[in-house]
């Protein structure tokens, strides 16, 4: 199958998987979400609360600082690793005890937040229009109704690609009106036939867990 040259080039250069941070207090939901995401060729980190999500994001920030100071003298693999750690998308349940998904969304999108540009998708089993508009107004990219299906993951492609694309390229954030951007068109075509984000990624072996930062009890699947 044909890949748009720019996209293939991006993949070659960055050699990273989309890293999704999944936040849900339900173990069953986390398991389901993790499977859906890995089926769509994403790397997943699951946490069971908004607090743990923030902890994880802070941890990544401090690790990237560590990496970037040695980046010039580091082997390419370390540079790739630093890129690999970065979270490309946050998917959070709305109703959680303690910090809700909405609270988490607000915190991530807050003025001055270093995570402001990370797309956030909110999920809920309840279809409450006021809740949906509240989240969209606060900066959520999408609001998905549970239970999630593979077809829902397709909606997330444009948001994931945003974080991989070179700064000079302009990606339309709203895909609903059809896109003039060639890259988006090619990705959609690819996906329609294969139902995965990038099918050749499936043959790659999963990254060893050691590469990902761990806090005791933080990685909950």
């Amino acid at each position: 199958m044909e890949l748009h040259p720019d996209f293939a080039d991006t993949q070659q250069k960055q050699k990273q998987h989309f890293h999704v941070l999944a936040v849900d207090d339900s173990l069953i939901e986390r398991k389901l979400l993790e499977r859906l995401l890995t089926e769509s060729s994403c790397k997943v980190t699951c946490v069971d609360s908004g607090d743990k999500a923030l902890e994880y994001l802070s941890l990544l920030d401090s690790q990237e600082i560590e990496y970037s100071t040695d980046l010039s003298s580091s082997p390419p693999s370390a540079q790739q690793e630093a890129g690999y750690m970065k979270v490309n998308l946050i998917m959070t349940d709305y109703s959680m005890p303690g910090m809700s998904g909405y609270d988490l969304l607000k915190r991530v999108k807050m003025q001055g937040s270093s995570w402001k540009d990370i797309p956030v998708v909110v999920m809920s089993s309840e279809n409450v229009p006021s809740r949906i508009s509240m989240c969209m107004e606060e900066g959520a990219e999408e609001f998905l109704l549970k239970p999630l299906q593979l077809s829902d993951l397709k909606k997330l492609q444009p948001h994931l690609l945003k974080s991989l694309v070179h700064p000079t390229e302009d990606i339309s954030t709203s895909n609903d009106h059809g896109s003039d951007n060639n890259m988006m068109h090619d990705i959609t075509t690819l996906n329609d036939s294969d139902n995965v984000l990038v099918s050749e990624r499936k043959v790659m072996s999963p990254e060893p867990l050691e590469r990902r930062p761990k806090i005791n009890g933080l990685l909950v699947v």
Partner: protein
Amino acid sequence: MDGVAQLQKQLVDYTASLFQEGFLDEQFNQLQQLQDESNPDFVVEVVSLFFEDSERLLNELAKALELKTIDFRKVDAHVHQFKGSSSSIGAQRVQKVCIAFRNYCEEQNIEGCLKCLQQVKHEYSLVKSKLETLFKIEKQLIAAGGSIPT
């Protein structure tokens, strides 16, 4: 019909009946679609988690409804969880009872809640035994050298 073909037919027919009788819905299909060679036990794993979680929730619900002063918000929170997990695996009849259950919680209707607790326990034990039967047939099929039809 040879052994494998017979078991395959049994599996297909049994699964179809579960859908027809409303025990399972489309979401269960979604789970099956997520099962493949690299995740061969996905459905059993998720369903096992559901069984564990459900038993915990049913215990919590029974305790919460035995109290002299019932905290309906707490009861509702448990039912909300149960509704979510049953919906995620496609346990349609359990999910439906949960919806009615939540309405009674909102009304603070003790009798309604107790009735729903009995109903949800009943529906849960039905779907549990049906799924266990389903998994048993699958195991037999695989042991006979067959594969689960997609």
